[in-house]
Every structure is written in C-alpha cells, then in structure tokens.
C-alpha cells in the first residue's frame, strides 16, 4: 500500500476543517510511528534541528507532556512556555507574544489557550506552523485523533456504523466537539449523553443523537467516551452537585452492562475517580484510557511531522 499523501496544511487548527483523506494520512503516519515508541533508542531524525515551542496558556499535564515527548522522539528541540510564566500576564498581546517566539527562530508553535478561536487567530498572525492543543470550548484536534486511532485499534479500521456514545459535559468540551467532527467523518454513529443543561438539543444540528436517558444512550454502544466533569468551569447553575451527577450519569458496573459486551471505555483524562467513572471500571480490561495516552504520542508525532513537512515543501 502506498502512503496516503493527502496533506497540504502547515497548521492543524480544527478537525472540522479536515477531509476523510487527511484523517487517513495522519493515521497512516501514526501507525508507522507507534512501533518506534517501544524501541530502546526511540529517536528519529525527522525534525532534527527544528525548534518547537509549546505555548500553554492554560494548565495541562497530559497534552503538554505528550507533545513534548512527540517532538523529542522526532529529534526536535522543545521549549515549553507556561501561561503563568509568560509575558502575557504583563499585558502583552497574543500577537506580540507569538511574533516574539517566531523572532526567536522557533519553527513551530503548539498552543493551548482558554479562548475559542485563538489557534486560528495565531495561525493568521504568524507564518510558522501552529498546532492547536485546545482552544477554549472549540476544538482539541489531537485528542480526537488519538481517540479515533485507539478506536480503530480496538474496533477495526473501519468505524462505519460503529456506535459511539460521548457522555458528560459536552457544552464546555473541546474534546467533544473535535470527536463529534472526527467520528462523523469516519462514518460512526454518535450519541451525546448527559444532563440537559450540559448537553443541549442544539447539538442535533451536528448530525448526532442527543439523549438524556442514560440507558438509551448506552444501550448497544461499541464504545463510551467519558468526559471529565469540569466543575471548576461551571457555576452551580448547570447541575446541582457532583454527587447528583454521579448518581444520575456516573458510569458504574451496572450501567456498563448496557453497552455491547466487548465495548470499550475511554476517557481523555484526568479522571475524577468515583465521579464520572467508577474506580474499578477505570482499571478494568474494558478501559483503554492508558492506551489513549500512549497513542497520543504517535498521533502527535504524525501531526508535527506532516505540518512541518508542508512548511518546508512550501518554502522550497
């Protein structure tokens, strides 16, 4: 099989922008990179001499570290700038910060930011590749890519007709939005579930099923993706309490039995054990949560490689 060549972007801003072929291109490269993760000497030379700046304006551990490792595996030099340590607190604009980073000869920027649309904005004000590591409640494209990559490993490469339920805080979730776009493009049937205040009917316009009855949402699903209940982001107006959430929507053994027998349980992390997910289930054989984390490295290696390659192709 020849390598899929469909990739002409220097930036990865949103899954919504991508074609099915572009998704396949990323998966192809992620599959090639994944076996290298287990080697003793893990370094590849793809991005040798390339400087990657991780600009994290919002706290993150998993995504930040996965991007750092992905860049290092490709031999890039990586610097992480955290929001609280950066000049933005001194009142510098994002445009100025980004242009300074570019002036410091950075070759790529990976950005996490609390404002939706900020990744797109960044890509418009600088020339070097921008990879969105999460922009507000808009998109988190690499999370959706690693989720789809994991689903393909477990459920088979063709996700057509597979039933995937996303459960939890959809309204404020960039992970949910990216996953909806990604899974739809791959032909899966998507159901959104959770309390009505966090899963408004308006999401039906995305071509998905919205379901506030948990049993109906989980019944016969091939996979369930849990989302962290981000109580720090919600006022008390969206749901009464974590306890109430757990009793109504938390995934436990009984509720997991409504899924298909071989269905998998996913979570982008960090997990609130005992809130959205029963602790024993999180550690059970049905949970693929740690596979997701590992796959996050391979997928991000693919993304960094592809975006940088486009830049150099454009330059030459």
């Amino acid at each position: 099989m020849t390598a899929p060549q469909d990739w002409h972007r220097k930036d990865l801003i949103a899954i919504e922008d991508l074609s099915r072929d572009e998704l396949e291109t990323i998966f192809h490269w992620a599959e090639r990179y994944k076996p290298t993760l287990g080697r003793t000497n893990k370094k590849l030379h793809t991005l040798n001499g390339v400087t990657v700046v991780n600009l994290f304006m919002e706290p993150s551990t998993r995504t930040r570290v996965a991007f750092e490792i992905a860049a290092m595996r490709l031999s890039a030099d990586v610097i992480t700038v955290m929001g609280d340590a950066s000049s933005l607190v001194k009142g510098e604009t994002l445009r100025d910060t980004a242009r300074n980073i570019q002036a410091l000869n950075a070759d790529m920027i990976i950005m996490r930011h609390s404002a939706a649309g900020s990744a797109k904005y960044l890509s418009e004000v600088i020339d070097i590749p921008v990879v969105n590591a999460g922009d507000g409640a808009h998109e988190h494209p690499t999370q959706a890519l690693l989720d789809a990559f994991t689903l393909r490993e477990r459920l088979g490469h063709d996700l057509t007709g597979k039933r995937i339920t996303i459960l939890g805080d959809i309204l404020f979730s960039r992970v949910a939005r990216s996953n909806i776009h990604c899974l739809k493009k791959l032909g899966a049937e998507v159901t959104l579930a959770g309390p009505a205040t966090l899963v408004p009917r308006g999401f039906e316009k995305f071509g998905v099923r919205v379901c506030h009855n948990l049993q109906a949402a989980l019944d016969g699903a091939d996979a369930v993706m849990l989302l962290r209940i981000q109580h720090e982001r919600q006022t008390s107006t969206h749901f009464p309490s974590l306890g109430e959430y757990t009793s109504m929507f938390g995934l436990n053994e009984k509720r997991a039995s409504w899924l298909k027998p071989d269905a998998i349980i996913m979570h982008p992390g960090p997990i609130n054990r005992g809130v959205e997910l029963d602790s024993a289930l999180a550690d059970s054989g049905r949970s693929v949560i740690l596979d997701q984390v590992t796959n996050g490295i391979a997928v991000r290696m693919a993304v960094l490689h592809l975006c940088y390659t486009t830049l150099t192709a454009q330059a030459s």
Partner: protein
Amino acid sequence: MSQLLVITGGRIIDPANQRDEVGDLYVRDGVIASEFSDEEREQAETFNASGLIVSPGFVDLHTHLREPGDSHKETIASGSKAAAAGGFTSIVCMPNTKPPADNAGTIQFIKERIERDAVVNVFPTGCLTMGREGKKLAPTGSLKEAGIVAVTDGGHCIQHNEIMRRALEYAAMFGLVVLDHCEDAAMTETGVMHEGEWSLKLGLRGKSSAAECIMVARDIILAEHTGGRIHIQQVSSASSVEMLRRAKERGVSVTAEVTPQHLALTDADLKAYDTNLKTVPPLRAEADRQSLITALADGTIDAIATAHAPHTVTEKDCEFDYAPFGMVSLETTLSVCLESLIRSEHMDLSAMLACLTHKPASVIGLKKGTLSTGADADITIFDPEAEWKVERESLQSLSRNSPWLGHTLRGQVKATFVGGRKVHG
C-alpha cells in the same frame, strides 16, 4: 442678503410629507423654502442632483462618540464627520463616556465640544442612574436643564425592577423618553455571541435571546404601569419583536429601533471569529434577522439606528473572548440598508428613509427629519447605485471596526447639508 441654495433635478423623497418626485429643492437662510423668485433663482448657488436621491438628513438615535474619556476611539469632531459622511445630520450621543454623563457639568462639557467641533447636530443624552450602575437615579431634571434629549444607561440595562420603574416615572415628569438596551445580566454575563447553533459550533459562550426578551417584556409592563415612555434600543430577536407587536396592538407607548448590522448579518457570519462582528446584542440567527426586517416594514420597529460603537484596531486585534463589543456603523448604514431592505425588496425607498428620518426624530420629539417648508435644511443627497470600498482611508471615524472593512458596498452619500451648509461632499 439671503443665503440661497437650489438643489436641482433630484428625486426628492420626503416620507413625512408623502412626497416622492423629481424636482428642485429650495433653501433660504438654512431653512427649506417652498419657492424662489426669478431673481433669487439667478442668485442662488446650485447643486445639480440629477440622477440622485434628495432626502431629509438622517437622524440617528444611537451613537457612541466616546468624548470625554476615550478620544483615541472617537471624538465629537471625528464622529460628527463620520455622521456627515454617512448622511446623518442629527445624531443622539450616548452617555457612556468617561466620566459618564450623569451630571450637568459633563453635559455642559459635551455641549461646549459640540458647539466647537461638531459638523452635524449632536444631541446629548443623560444617564438614567449615577455612574450607569443601575442603583441610584441621576439628577434627570438638572440634566434636562443642561440640554439632554433623552435618558439612558447606554449599554447597561438596569437590572433592578423597582429602580427602573421609578426611573420611568421620574423621567416622564420631564417628558423624557427612556432608552433601554434590554439584556438580563445574569443570563448573559459570560456570553460573547448569540446562543444557538453557531455558539455551539464555535465553542463560544452564548447570550440567549430570552435574556433580551425578558427585559423587553419587563420594560413594556413598566411603561404600561407607569405611563412612562420607553424606547427599546437595538431589538435583535424574533421573540422581542413579537413582544413589541403585541404591546403596540394594545396601545402601549413603546417604540423600538434596529441596527443595520442586525438587519444584514447573522451569527453564522462569526465563523471566522472576526472580532469586528462581536457586538451586543449579538448578531442572531437568520430567522431573527428575517423577523426584524418584517417588523421594520410593518411598523413594529420604528427606526433604524446605527449603534455606532468605535473601538481601535489594537483593542479588536485579539482573541474573540477578549475583544470589546461594538462596531462602527455611521458610514455604512445607508449602503447596508439599501442592500438588506431595498434590493431584497422588503421595503420601498420612501419607507426605508422614513425609518432613517422623521420616525426616529419623532421617537424623542426632535423637530427634524422632514423637508417641510420652514424646516431646518438638513439634507442628504445620495446615489443608490454608486459603489465604494470600505477602507481605512475612506472612513472618517477614528476607528475602523467595521464588519464591511475591505468590502465594496453599493449606495453612496454624495452631499450632506446641515442648516443649508454643505458639511460633506
């Protein structure tokens, strides 16, 4: 000797007098005259308006001039020039200046600046409450004596129902209309755009149309209860329109305005996160836009107002969440309304011009907006077909936060006269 001007050969549209004909318009000493003697005709300065529309000068009920306090965004001088360029000869400026216009001294300052710098008629409004905080009534009587034409907290909606009720009662004593920007604060605090399909897609926090409609309903109830006069600013949603329609059918003394941006644009236009489209009330869904057009055509909404809200390029050059709300509009209103209302065949030209002239004037009782004999010769002459490009260089406003920046628009003001004196063109 009299100052004489004759505007010849234009299509004169004077909606207040149901006049729509090709002819000559006479101005003697800054006032519309019915005719000239042969001698006067010979002496008069002539403006050839053949092929052009001759309209009463436009009246804007809703302009932010930013002076005092934010003269880097706009001044009375620059804002009034922008008004003249857009065909507006009378503008009503909002009191959300720094300091707010909640005291006679600030009104006095604004009046002096108008006297010194303005090229069109500028009418100040006063705050309804001190500091626009919605807590304590501003000295409405003193503000009226200082020269205000209406009261409003300009951009802030009083949340406390009892204070709003008393404000309406108190303002009514002075014959002042209360202008209200309707928005329930608790429901919209974190919102940056219309709550709907597009806010879900873009991951931006929404302001629901219910938050507007609730306050429109509140204001209607209080107007009915107190006999006060309320004017709803910037109606943006179909539900508010319905509320207004029913109130007007009952005979409640309420009027309303809509902006050109809400007639032309929707939430779907935000898909590129263009901060120049971030405004409040937010651009709503297509069904809302259609209902606003219908309401303007059937008289439920009385006036087109610009809500001209200047912000600098730097202030708008940032993440969508952090950009200030508002857009400049004085200079694009005519072209945008021609496109949204006339070329789409929702209204005829005379009906549209009524919403830009005598109807807004009558909302607050200004003797403006007509070409009646004896009226001030405030006249706007425009070519409805002429194309122009909205560019930094083509705008008079100090700010450039227009959704139409870089676009070519159709319909251009060729000359603006205030009191018979040419101030633009």
